[in-house]
């Protein structure tokens, strides 16, 4: 994504075409700060988008101008100045570290603890831009293999060019442009993201992942992902956000839309470890994300599994619209807050069709001065005959200065529907810690073992290679929470 000469020329050209102009600053390699229609036109032009998509973006932008940011979540932050942000930016290769020696040693230690090999350090720290491009080409290699079975897996901007009919048919149909403040903002300015289409009856031969791509999008904080599973198709998709961010309170407002047709199944897993800010709560990402899946077909399935350990603030409710008869949705979540982190996360299960099923398992862990809120809606519509939901919501507290909150919303308009909600709150017992230490574990190992045990049901839902990483992350994000 680094701006090349072509980009600079494009910016210059636009600056002439639209008299508001852009200051082309090669040193910074960004479009100017702020948000207006010209920025949106620039993004759209940069990606050579068709007219309908630009119109859609502008419609979203104009709608957004009339909206206010939501106040109902249990999170606190100063007002965000939306004019004080870059909406199109590429890595500042000149300012970035040139070699591993120039990288913050603490950053390197963090990678070591994560068990990421050295050459990947370079990729993750944005040192070797070529290597970042290499990681994109890894996805391209997969792409060929996937094409053989008819699976489309590419950047959404590429999909707009190559498969405009699919994008146009599904984009914004699960999360409409007017959905909510941050999703609407995303609709106006999204710059990157993935597109997946599985044709009828295709079982994706491998896990799809965006693990490396997140680095290329270092400053592109408005991703948009669209996954469509046609009748009978199956896919497991992994999203990793494990590159720490060093910026001050940067906004990350992504949108993910999933569509599952008859008998299709989508499994979407996330391990989110954005920079959480320092111990005093300075810096860190505002992770304000809208994720929603539509089970449109009969007996379709969508499951969300998330491990949320990073970000200063997480505001995220991966949801399922259970429309198809006998369709089912699941939400498995681990949310960890430490230091001054805040998380307000959960799900929405909207039961529309007959015999729909949903399962919610939420594990919240609070340490330091962290505040962790589970917020979940289960709605049984009038037509949801014999629909079933089961919710388990467990909170674990470490220390006395953190908080855990559970806010379930249950609405039932059908007398045959059944909704079950269980919730527990516990502290890590002094007796548990002592027992582990008596067996030779130090305090941090003990906490890690106990917390991983607490999260086990959710960790089991992750694909194997992610589960191992997630376990390490759980331990890492709780470092310094005891003693």
């Amino acid at each position, binding site marked *: 994504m680094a701006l090349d000469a072509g980009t600079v020329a494009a910016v210059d050209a636009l600056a002439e075409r639209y008299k508001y102009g852009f200051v082309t600053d090669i040193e910074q390699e960004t479009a100017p700060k702020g948000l207006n229609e010209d920025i949106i036109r620039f993004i759209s032009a940069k990606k050579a988008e068709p007219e309908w998509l630009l119109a859609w973006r502008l419609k979203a932008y104009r709608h957004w101008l009339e909206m206010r940011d939501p106040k109902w979540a249990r999170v606190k932050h100063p007002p965000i100045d939306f004019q004080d942000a870059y909406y199109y930016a590429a890595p500042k290769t000149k300012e970035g570290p040139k070699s591993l020696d120039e990288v913050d040693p603490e950053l390197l230690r963090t990678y070591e603890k994560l068990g990421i090999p050295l050459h990947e350090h370079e990729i993750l720290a944005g040192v070797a831009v070529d290597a970042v491009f290499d990681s994109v080409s890894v996805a391209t290699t997969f792409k060929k293999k996937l094409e053989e079975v008819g699976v489309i897996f590419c950047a959404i901007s590429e999909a707009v060019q190559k498969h405009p009919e699919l994008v146009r048919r599904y984009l914004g149909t699960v999360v409409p442009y007017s959905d909510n403040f941050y999703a609407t903002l995303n609709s106006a300015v999204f710059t990157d993201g993935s597109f997946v289409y599985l044709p009828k009856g295709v079982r994706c031969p491998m896990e799809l992942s965006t693990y490396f791509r997140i680095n290329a999008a270092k400053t592109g904080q408005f991703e948009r992902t669209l996954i469509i599973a046609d009748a009978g198709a199956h896919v497991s998709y992994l999203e990793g956000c494990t590159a720490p961010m060093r910026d001050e309170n940067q906004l990350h407002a992504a949108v993910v839309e999933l569509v599952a047709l008859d008998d299709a199944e989508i499994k979407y897993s996330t391990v989110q470890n954005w920079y959480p800010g320092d111990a005093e709560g300075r810096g860190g990402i505002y992770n304000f994300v809208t994720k929603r899946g539509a089970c449109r077909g009969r007996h379709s399935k969508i499951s969300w599994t998330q491990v949320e350990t990073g970000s200063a603030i997480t505001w995220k409710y991966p949801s399922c619209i259970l429309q198809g008869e006998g369709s089912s949705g699941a939400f498995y979540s681990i949310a960890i807050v430490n230091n001054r982190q805040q998380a307000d996360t959960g799900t929405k299960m909207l039961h529309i069709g007959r015999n729909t099923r949903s399962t919610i398992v939420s594990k919240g862990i609070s340490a330091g001065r962290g505040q962790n809120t589970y917020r979940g809606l289960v709605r049984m519509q009038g037509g949801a005959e014999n629909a079933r939901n089961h919710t388990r919501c467990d909170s674990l507290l470490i220390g006395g200065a953190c908080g855990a909150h559970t806010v379930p919303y249950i609405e039932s308009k059908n007398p045959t529907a059944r909704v079950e909600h269980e919730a527990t709150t516990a502290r890590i017992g002094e007796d*548990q810690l*002592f*027992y582990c*230490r*008596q*067996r*030779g574990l130090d305090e941090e190992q003990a906490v890690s073992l*106990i917390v991983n045990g607490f*999260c086990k*049901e959710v960790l089991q839902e992750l694909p194997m290679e992610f589960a191992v990483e997630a376990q390490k992350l759980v331990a890492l994000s709780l470092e310094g929470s005891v003693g």
Partner: protein
Amino acid sequence: MLEIHDLHVSVGGAEILKGLSLNVAAGEVHAVMGPNGSGKSTLSYVLAGRPGYDVTAGTVRYKGRDLLAMAPEERAAAGVFLAFQYPVELPGVSGATFLRTALNAVRKARGEKDLDAMQFLKAVRERLRSLSMTEETLKRALNVGFSGGEKKRNEMLQMALLEPDLAVLDETDSGLDIDALKLVADGVNALRAPGRAMLVITHYQRLLSHIVPDRVHVLARGRIQRSGGKELALELEARGYAEFGHAA
């Protein structure tokens, strides 16, 4: 191996141990007997380093080192093992994960290499067999839903695997029927070794019929009131703790 001198310990401001002295040599098994509330569990916890037990006076030396200056995990690494009266439940943590984590933590502290999964399994299988336990124990969450007997056998399994130099058994006989008691006692006896000291803390004599001690001490009112050979246990069984100022 273990030298306790004039130990005073308070819990929540109340003095529980009031000048306890006790020496245990390598290769010996000592029994500490006493009525409820005499300070038996306090002794075991303070040896293991449980937070909240304030040592106000006295010394404890273990292999010549100041035991009280060591963190609980350092004591474990140095070979101190406490078999808990009430083993703690760890939901979601399988027995195998716990045992392997503990074993490797202790090995690391001793400068030994981690055991890989196969080596670990081999080591643990041998011990399981000798305690008449099944591999099912390794898959279950540690102590969760275990019967009293299962919990105590699980403690013995950990002890057998960690091979401590000083084992403190806190009321290991409580809550066991006679068959379980015999199994646990066999497990302990199998671990008796010239380089290993054991401190068996119990209210009742019956455990000492199966684990025959070299020395017996009576703990009451926070101090060792009397010490003797194995016959002292039988005497206590017959006469109770009344002469030491406690009802049996």
